[in-house]
């Protein structure tokens, strides 16, 4: 991670435009540490693939520079960058066997025969496909093809491997298996990975750090835990995990604490994370599991009356949808336990939360 170890990749004020009018990537500054698994996460069209392609050399950089191991990539063609890439559709060569696909990058590097053989065997063993070396890609399942693509990107031991939604085409079960396998491979090989996905679950399980993209800008780069527990803006809070949003206006500001008047009545104390000042609009962000129903009197100064609208029993917890301050999409997660309150639709209860869990973010 940056600081701890040397940065392998540095994006230095990178801009990208295709049409000369809109910036698809805006002023990107990002570092990828040696051996790190960094995921770029964001909604469709947020510029993740474009960023990856600029790094791989398939898209030009409009402005700024990308450094790999301290050297500018500006005038290095893709085939000299020594960056492995796993494409979303795998891009395995259909006229070659698995073995030949894996031999391709080694032959391009003019490696001796016996060494090639050895490396292919090792790579195939790593992705557990040794018996399939003579097959063509078309004779493999989606998951197997994906593993061949990973093996091919790793077989020549590049310092950096890029993966663009490599699991997008797989079904849920296989995707989860492959997530663990990729994570495992990353840990054993120690390669640096830049990974793209728009599946936040995938990002949270696999990454050392996640860069959340929106409209060409990085919103926040942090570990999964920090991203979930301490989102820095309303977009990240909403995009990662489940989130309750309450809109309001800042009434007073006192260091890390603020008072916010919620639209629809009531005033609450909140943690001032990203507020512009007194009198400005703000978005309050609350995780569903931070909200208590019928809380004890002390420690929960923020209290409201809430009408139960809907109950969904999910085994280990119950999702309760309530109407708070005219927001009827407010979700509370009640864990299953002996002393959990008994709830009925239509009842009115008190709900409350700790001001430290209520983050006041940008509007």
């Amino acid at each position, binding site marked *: 991670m940056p600081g701890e170890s040397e940065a392998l990749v540095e994006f230095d004020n990178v801009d990208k435009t295709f049409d000369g009018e809109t910036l698809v990537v805006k002023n990107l500054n990002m570092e990828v540490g040696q051996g790190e698994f960094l995921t770029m996460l964001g909604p469709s069209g947020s510029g993740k693939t474009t960023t990856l392609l600029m790094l791989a050399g398939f898209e030009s950089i409009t402005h700024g520079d990308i450094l790999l191991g301290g050297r500018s990539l500006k005038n290095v063609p893709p*085939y000299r960058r020594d960056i492995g*890439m796993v494409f979303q*559709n795998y*891009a*395995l*060569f259909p006229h070659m066997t698995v073995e030949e696909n894996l031999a*391709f*990058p080694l032959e*391009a*590097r003019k490696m001796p025969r016996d060494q090639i053989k050895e490396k292919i065997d090792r790579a195939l063993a790593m992705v557990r496909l040794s018996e399939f070396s003579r097959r063509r890609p078309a004779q493999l399942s989606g998951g197997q093809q994906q593993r061949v693509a990973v093996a091919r990107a790793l077989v020549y031991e590049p310092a950096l491997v890029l993966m663009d939604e490599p699991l997008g085409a797989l079904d849920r079960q296989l995707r989860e298996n492959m997530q663990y396998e990729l994570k495992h491979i990353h840990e054993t090989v120690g390669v640096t990975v830049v990974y793209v996905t728009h599946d936040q679950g995938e990002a949270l399980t696999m990454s050392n750090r996640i860069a959340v993209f929106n409209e060409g800008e990085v919103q926040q780069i942090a570990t999964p835990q920090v991203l979930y527990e301490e989102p820095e803006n309303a977009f990240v809070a909403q995009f990662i995990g489940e989130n309750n949003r309450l809109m309001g206006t800042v009434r007073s500001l006192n260091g890390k604490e603020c008072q916010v008047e919620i639209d629809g009545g009531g005033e609450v104390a909140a943690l001032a994370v990203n507020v512009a000042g007194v009198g400005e609009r703000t978005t309050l962000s609350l995780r569903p599991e931070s909200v208590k129903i019928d809380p004890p009197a002390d420690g929960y100064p923020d209290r409201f009356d809430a009408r139960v609208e809907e109950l969904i029993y999910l085994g280990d917890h119950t999702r309760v949808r309530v109407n708070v301050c005219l927001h009827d999409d407010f979700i509370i997660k009640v864990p299953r336990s002996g002393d959990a309150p008994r709830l009925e639709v239509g009842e009115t209860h008190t709900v409350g939360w700790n001001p430290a869990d209520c983050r006041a973010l940008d509007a």
Partner: protein
Amino acid sequence: MAAVSPNAGGPIMLDGVPLKIRLERAERMRKVKAVGLILPLFIFLMVTFAIPIVVMLMRSVENPEIVQVLPRSAAAMRLWDGEGFPPNEAMQTFAAEVVTAKAAKTLGKAAKRLNYNASGFRSMLFKTGTKLERAIEKEGEEAVLQGPEMLERFIDIDKRWGERRYWSIIRQASPPHTAWYLLRSVDRDYDENTDIVPISEDQAIHVEVLWRTIVISAVVTLLCLLLGFPIAYLLGTLPTKQSNLLILLLLLPFWTSLLVRTTAWLVLLQNEGVINDIAIYFGLWDEPLQLVRNRMGTYIAMVHILLPFMVLPMFSVMKGIDPYHMKAAASLGANPVSAFIKVYLPQTLPGVGAGVLLVFILSLGYYITPALVGGPADQMLSYFIAFHVNTTVNWGLAAALSALLLVCVMIFFAMYQRLVGVGNIRMN
């Protein structure tokens, strides 16, 4: 709901009918439907395509003329062992039937058939008929037709009857089927002992024409490939919107008839044509260049006409090649040239194969274009087929040449199958 009754051990019953029989019935219905769907096309193809071809090919071995016109002579000649001259009785039968056939006005048919083998045979046969008729008037039927020395009489009528060759020809023309037309299609003939020999060099033409046909087709195919590959590559890598427009331009020539396009080349390329005029005007050359009525004109016009058949299958295959393959190859460290050769080119082979096969086989059968823009030395096999159908009205030889062309196509197809495999052809 149907009642399913699984009875232990026995067949599974559905409404009292074993499941297996039900399945067979359902399958049979499906097959009947499938057959019903293809039947009309099948009948159409049989009637308009397969049967005519078979009938045409049959003509190359059929030999009905002598058997029909001179049936008893044919039988007698077939009994002759071919040594020396036919026996006297056979000659008597022959003389009698020639006279009858001449009276019945059917002799022309037989004469035409025999004339294929030796020119002059027709007039000799009619002369023989006339002389025999006169002799019968003078000497009486018995004295002429039952004579002991028939050969002498024939030689008196025309001394060519003294050559064994003519009698052998009659014998060879007597069976109802013959390989003679097929032999002629490869410049072979029977000699007077019915051995197969090459025909004299000044008459031999078909093998040379066949070879020429193959060479022209190969050159045209190669030129189409060289010109078509870059076009197909461009079309295959352009965005669909632009490539569709260019495809339209490529197909534009199909909107006019082959004849018009070929004649247009004649107008462009002839000595007083547009190309020569412009070139002379700009001083590229001084005298009109012979661009047409020679091999050059044939190549130009044929390549122009056949190019779309090369480009389209290649285009459709190239269109289907994932552009990410080239990116993947680059990311794996291959420079653009080696990525193209190792990754792109092999994937185009099914399309290249389809285009090559299509153009080559179409070229083999080309007729109108070389006939219009080629010189006498550029005519292909089809020209001679048409010539024998239209001009000499020798259907047997025309059919034999067609069979030769068909065999050629099949040989090339088989070679192709061995090298590329038809299963690998893709036209999308």
